[in-house]
Structure formats: C-alpha cells, structure tokens
C-alpha cells in the first residue's frame, strides 16, 4: 500500500503540466502514487503524462477518459482506484514544494489525523518576474481548497465524501464536509502548495459572472441539504452562516446586474431561514462577515449601493497598483 495517492485531474493545461508533474516526481516522500486523470483533454497533455509514466513507472500512472467529465468526476474516478493511506489533490497548472507530502504525511501519522492542512500561496508570472501572495486559510470560509490537504482514504470512504459533479466551486463542499465529519484535524504551518493565478482563468472572466453566481446557488443548496442529511448543521451552524455570509458578500464583486445580485442575496436568505441558521448559530454579531451580511441582507438599495462602493474601491486599488508597477518599471529602466 502507498502512503499517499496524489490525484491530478488534467484538462487543457499542456503549458503547465510538465512543471506540475516535475514537482511531484521530486517529492521526498518515497512511497507515493500519482494518478493522472486525462479528462479528454484535446491537447498534448496525454503525451506529457505518458512520458512521466514511462520514466517513473513505480510512481506515476494515468487514467485516460474518452469523454470530458469535469474536474469533480475526474477526481471521483481517480479516488476509486487510489490505494494510498492518504489522498491528496494537485491541480495540473500548479506545483508543490518537494517536501510537501513528506511533511504532511508525517504530521498525519503523528497526530493520527483524518485531515491535514498546510498553507498555500498564489503565484502570477509576469514577463520576467513571479509575484507570490500567501492565501488566507485561517477562517473556514477562506480555506475552501482541497489542494492544501491530505485526507485519510478510509475516512472519506466511510463518510461517503465525494465531489459534487458538474457544479462550480466543487472544492468547497468537499473541504467543509471532510472537516465537519471528524475531530481529528491537524496542520502543517508551512507554505507548501503553489496556486497559479491565471488572468484568463474561467472564474475571472466577466462573461461568466452571472453563470457562476447562479451555479453557486445550486452548489450552496446542495451543500446545505447534504449537511442537513448528515446531521451536521447543529454543530456547525456558525461556520455555515459565515460561509453563506461570505458568499453573499463576495457576490458584490461580481460583474452582474442589480437584479441578479439582490436575487442572490434573497436566495442566501432563503437558505439561512430554511435551515434556521441564525437560531442554531447563536450570537454571531462579533463575526465581521456575518454582521456585515446581516446589516445589508434585508435592503435591496443598500446592497446595490454597497456593490458600487466595493467596486469603486477595487478600481481605485487597481489604479494605484498600476502606478506602482509603472514606477517600478521606470526605475528598472534607469
């Protein structure tokens, strides 16, 4: 049996795949298997993956899907054939530190944990430089990734935790569910995972703002229904309320019409009322996100004004950043 199975779903990432797989080949933890799922990717990904399978047959293997099933189903399929004691997920355009899985696995063993997390940072490549930012993972609603975690395989199986198919933000319900269903959590307080910010990424395209928002409604509805089914709401009402409040507030930044925005708030409201989160969570007025959400939820004009305000602030920040960047370039030219 392997110590860790690393699952890498691959779709249209030929530019980045090699650096991702290279970072996995360099892992200092020896007894790992890397399962590459080629999700009917139309580019040369299968060939790149094939090279690694040939060069490191004891570590890399690939599953080639003929029909595109999306990242969630690709991960679910790989999980079925994973044999490691723990499972990790790496996205095919990212890369990880060489000691990531060694540190995570030994922490998992030390604390006999079902879920182990580490820190993550984003990186953005400019012409000659790379810009890094540490990603916030302190709050539950910030740490919605599965890529910075190890999950005990039998634990996922026994709790029947899988990725929701064909819905946006598939990581989030998985990460929440996995942490809600156990008390054995552990942490490695180091930045071990590098997450690529791509300017043309799906989530950031303006055209997709509206689609994503409505898809988020589907995801949140399923997530809360699932939590209810698992009987997890009473113990975690506060985190769930924060999660919903955070989603509502983040919609303020979407490029969507006022009706869609207020509609999203009303949908979130429906979930809060339906699952009685305000009652079950007790007093959350200290929480920044929740208190902001509660302040604005009932009033459409205030929600719309707030969205103009945050977007203006965002535009101002971007403007200032551009000036800084121009100054830096000018200094560099000197």
């Amino acid at each position: 049996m392997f110590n860790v199975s690393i699952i890498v779903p691959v779709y249209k990432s030929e530019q980045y795949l090699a650096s991702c797989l290279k970072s996995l080949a360099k892992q200092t933890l020896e007894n790992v298997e890397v399962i590459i799922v080629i999700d009917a990717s139309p580019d040369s990904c299968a060939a790149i993956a094939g090279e690694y399978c040939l060069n490191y047959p004891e570590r890399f293997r690939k599953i080639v899907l003929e029909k595109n099933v999306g990242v969630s189903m690709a991960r679910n399929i790989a999980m079925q054939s994973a044999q490691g004691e723990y499972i990790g997920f790496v996205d095919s355009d990212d890369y990880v530190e060489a000691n990531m899985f060694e540190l995570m696995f030994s922490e998992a063993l030390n604390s006999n944990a079902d879920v182990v997390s580490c820190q993550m940072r984003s990186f953005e490549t400019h012409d000659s430089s790379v810009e890094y930012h540490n990603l916030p993972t302190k709050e539950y609603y910030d740490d919605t990734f599965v890529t910075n975690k190890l999950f005990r395989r039998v634990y996922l199986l026994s709790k029947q935790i899988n990725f929701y198919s064909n819905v946006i933000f598939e990581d989030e319900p998985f990460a929440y569910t996995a942490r809600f269903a156990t008390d054995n959590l552990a942490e490695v307080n180091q930045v071990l995972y590098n997450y690529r910010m791509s300017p043309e990424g799906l989530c950031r395209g303006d055209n997709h703002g509206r689609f994503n928002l409505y898809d988020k409604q589907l995801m949140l509805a399923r997530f809360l229904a699932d939590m209810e089914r698992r009987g997890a709401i009473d113990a975690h009402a506060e985190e769930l309320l924060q999660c919903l409040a955070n989603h509502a507030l983040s919609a303020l930044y979407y490029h969507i019409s006022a009706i869609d925005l207020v509609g999203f708030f009303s949908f979130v409201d429906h979930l809060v009322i339906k699952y009685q989160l305000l009652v079950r969570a007790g007093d959350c007025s200290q929480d920044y996100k929740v208190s902001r959400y509660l302040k604005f939820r009932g009033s459409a004009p205030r929600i719309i004004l707030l969205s103009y305000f945050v977007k203006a602030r965002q535009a101002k920040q971007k403007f200032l950043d551009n000036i800084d960047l121009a100054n830096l370039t000018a200094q560099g030219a000197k």
Partner: protein
Amino acid sequence: MSVILNRSPSVSIVVPVFNTEQYLWQCLESLAEQSLTSIEVIVVIDASPDNAYQLAKQFAEQSNLAMRIVNLTTNVGLAQARNIGMSHAKGQYLGFVDSDDYVDNQMYSHLFNQAVANNADWVSCGFSKFSAQGVEQYAHSNISENTSVCNKLFRRSFIHQHQICFPAGELFEDEIFSYMAELYAQTILHIENPYYFYRHNANGICRKPGADKSRLYARMCSIGDFMQRMEQSELLPSAAPLCLEMLCRHAYLQLRTQVSWFDLLCYWRFTQHLIEKYQLAQSIDLVKDNYFVSSFNKWQHREWALWLIRLRAGRANYAVE
C-alpha cells in the same frame, strides 16, 4: 384479520400516512372494495402523531383486505415512506394512493387488465380533484402535466430494473419518479376514465400565500437537484425536450403564486441558468408548440411584462398544481 396470499398478488398499493386520520378510513375502504381481488395494501405510518396507526390496525382486523402495516417511529417524509413501502411490495404491479384520497372500485382491475394485455411498463388513468366546492376532472396524457404517481400502475420489475425510486426532498418526488418511468419505458398506456379522486385542500399548508415565497426558493433547490439527477442518470440528451417543458411549465406556473415580481424574476432567471447549463435550448424546436415553452421563450427577455401577465393570471385564479 388480514389475509395472507399464497402467491404473489397482482397489485401492491403503497399508502403513506401522515396526519390524515380523518380521511384514512375512506381511503382504505375504497381499496377494500376493489373489484380486483388479488391485491395487497402496504400502509406506511410515517410516525403520524394522530391515531392513524390504531385506525389502520382496526381496519385490518375488520376487513378482508390483504394489508400490511409498517409503523415508522421517526418521520421520514413522503418520498422515503413510499420507498419503504415499495421495498415490502410483492405484487406484479405497483400503485400509490395518498391517504387523504380515494379511488373508484374499478380502478385497479381496469388498469391491471390493460397493463397485462398490452404488456405495458406502466398505465395511467384520469383523475378528479374534489373539494368542498365541487369536482373537476382531468385526463392528461402528456407527462409534463401528468406527473402524479397516484393515478398510475407500474410494473414492479420495470421499476426495479431501472432502480427508480423517490428522491428525498420536499418537492417534486412524484415528478422525478414519473419522468424516470416515462424515459425508461417501452410501452405506456393511458386510460381516460377518472378513477382516482384527489383531495384538493384549499386551506392546506401548501396553499398559504405567505408560504409561497419560501416554496418558490425551495422549488429552485429541488429543480436544480432534479436536473442534476437527470444528468447523472445519463438520460439528459434524450430527456432534454421533456426537461425543457418541465422547467418552462414550472416557471410559468409561478405567475399564479403570491410572490413578488422580484422573486418571480429570480425564479425565471434561475430557470434560464438551468437551460443554459444543461444546454436544453438546442431541443427547443421539438417542443416549441408546448404552451409553457413558447410562453417562457416569448416573455423571458421582457421581464417588465411579467408584471402585467401576473396581474392577469392572478385574476384567472387557477390552482397552482
């Protein structure tokens, strides 16, 4: 005492019971009076807080009806109660009756004979809605308007083979079951006779105007689940026209509920999202004659007009479902 049949009955009827003690007796009597004799009734008491269980027991002692009572101690909801009832069924065919309704004494012999004669996967009949105000008859053969499971008889092996069951949830359990049955079936038969009597409760919990808004949003959740189920069962490309009809029908029917224009817009936009997400618009030519599809298509981008349509529809004062 209940009769134990030597061989498997022709028809099993599942009757889920929750808070319906005042109607249960009439319901069971109508089943005991069926002209079809090879029949078993499975009553699932879904932790009903009233005296329904005692009543059902008493009925079983008095009547010759082959009856099994499943007494659940925790409430599981209509969908799950029916699933549990189904798991006890032994009949060649399977029917469902709600415990506040009743049926004509010819219903199951007619449906069963027709089903066997035509080797049908399922058969449906017409139904009547009755209330204190009177009776209305319906005979729909189009599945998007004939979504109840109560006016139907399903071959049990067919249900079993395709693993059709009721999804847990608060809405649409009938619709999902019926759609699955429609999509998998080879042979379906419709009989026009209105054999099933459906109690239309104008003052029921479902009809309170204040509850319409929360039902609207709950419907969004359920309809999203429905589409996902369709996709997962890999029925979707072929089921796309049906799904389109269903989505448009529900969107249009929301015009007749007591929700604000804004909530209505949210619902219509959510419907648009599902149509986009599951690429249903490609099938629009196949169902463009459907009233709901053409209406939705016509009005979806003229949202201001919804306000006017809603006024008119409100006056027509139709039943919502």
